[in-house]
């Protein structure tokens, strides 16, 4: 009986020991993983900033203008005389609905 008791005590101690070591290793591994992810995130953030800088350079009006001219795309804002302005029906004068109404009436009569 005393032998069994001692064996049990030893087993408990060994189990606790193993558990402690495995937990410590797991924490260590988690720490390593977190650190690696932090480094990766940091690298990605840096890369993002560099790429944003490149995009900003490519989006510059000067660059777009030069490329339009280089590829002869003929893109540009139209002249005033080339713009047809269609009045917004919401902002038409009050007389207009009457005209529209009379036209509608004409169509019905026909």
């Amino acid at each position: 009986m005393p032998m069994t008791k001692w064996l049990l005590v030893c087993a408990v101690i060994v189990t606790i020991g193993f558990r402690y070591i495995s937990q410590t290793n797991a924490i260590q591994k988690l720490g390593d993983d977190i650190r690696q992810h932090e480094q990766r995130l940091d690298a990605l953030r840096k890369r993002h900033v560099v790429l944003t800088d490149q995009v900003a350079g490519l989006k510059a009006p000067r660059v777009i203008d030069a490329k339009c001219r280089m590829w002869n795309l003929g893109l540009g804002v139209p002249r005033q005389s080339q713009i047809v302005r269609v009045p917004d029906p919401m902002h038409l004068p009050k007389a207009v609905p009457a005209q529209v109404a009379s036209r509608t009436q004409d169509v019905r009569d026909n």
Partner: protein
Amino acid sequence: MIASSHTLRAFGVAGVLLAGFVLLAAKLCVIQTVQHHELAAKAEYFRERTVKRDARRGNIRDATGNILAQSIPVRTVCADPIAMRKIHASQLPIIAQQLANLLNLDYQWVLARLDGSRHYVVIKRKVDEDTIAQIKALKIPGLSFEPDSLRSFPNGQFASHLIGFVGFDGKGVTGVEWKRDRYLQGQGGWREIVKDNKGREIFIFRNLDVLPRDGYDVILTIDSVIQHIVESALDRAMEKHNPKAAIAIVMRPSTGEILALANRPTFDPNQYGKASAEQLRNRAIGLVAEPGSTFKYVSIAAALNEGTIRLDDTVHCENGNFWYAGRVLHDAHPHGLLTVREVIKVSSNIGAAKVALKMGEVALYRYVRDFGFGQRSGVDLPGEEYGLAHPLNAWTKLSITRIPMGHEIAVTPLQMINALCCIANGGVLMTPRVVSQVVDADGKAVAAFPAKAQRRVLTGRGAKAITDALVGVTEEGGTGKKAAIEGYGVAGKTGTAHKIEGGVYVNKYYSTFVGFFPAERPEVCIQVSLDEPRGAYYGGDTAGPIFRTIGEQIARYLDIVPTESAPKPKEGVSVAMLDRMPR
């Protein structure tokens, strides 16, 4: 006898062992008590570290969110020459050659740096991450890479006088970079870590982790497209007129927002060290010069507002020669009777002088000050000049006839355009501004800089009257007809001022056109100034056409509805087709 000998030896050994243990215990006591603090600090120094975490400087963006300035991560390449020599002295020339190639440096210079007798030398600063990765791949011992940041201006010299640049220490030196440095600079963080014997962090012992707070983004009132229109027009003007300098400003009169501001000569803020003082000078707020005839609108507006004159009142312009206080005042072309409207239209010096004489010195001076001359406009840019508006007690008898035509007074281009914006804004003087708001990383506003009215200078009726007169300048027979924009009524004023050198007027000119459109409901105000244009020098002939080019493009970009009938396109031609038509 034998037993006695063994006993002695046993005692001897025991004594030696005991003495050893006593010494050991004594040493332990010394370590644990006397040397405790010193050794504990040393152990802590090697195990624990406080790692600084730098904040990223905020971006500068235009009104539509385009990035105009941002900080990108770079590294400083450093070396420990003593350590390198210990490891492989014979390979130093090869290492120097490799570093020189990758870092674009002189081989001899790199070799000399690596052959030194110090533990720390800087090989190159501001090296990009791609190059660092290539150097790391070489696995050269004794090299280290310190984190740093580089302020990048992806559009080069675009709006450089306005944005400014940052110095070696990462702090703003000029422009918005300096003015809003408080917002752009972030708050650094730190991390307290514990390292193992190989120098790796033991994550579970990370005590404190304070995240850095990156700098806020500053949003400008500048619109990149308008800025590009203005800069392109100035580049063409520099080629055509070859002036010493050129300045253009575009403002929104109702809010005081500066939509574009450009100077020539200019500089690339990415390489500000190579720029000369002339290139760095922001003339839009720093050039103080006599405005010439553009100033006439100030004196006539004052007289109209005071009710001293009306637009259709007539003034006799003495056929080009007006004697006053013993000196003669000339007009560029002789005129007889002119209405006040015509005085502005043909830019008569004598007419403007006579209007001012009728109004009186006190009122004229009051309006000069009220329009903001002789004082800073309050624009949020560093280096703004006051200009020169002499106090009334320093006026001579001639001043009342000279100031109305833009002599005896000196102004900055920004003061001139802001005064015209006041007229365009119905008589209310606004504070010009280039920053609209400051936002955090999520786009939430941290600080806002709304439109700020300084004071009412003119009544609405007074502003309307001077606007009517200024429209005539760009009509047939006016000095600024080359500034007229198809489809819009343009109110503006030309100016051709003699320059002063050594206290006397010389045959060098400062040509200006400043105007706004549509005159009926002003949307934008534009000033173009050329300093010493070659060949043609009249403001209407040089700055006027540049104003028109800028105005036409801005009108189309901002989709400003025309106020006058424009030629109609052919029937059956769609807008999409028109877009592809050659211009």
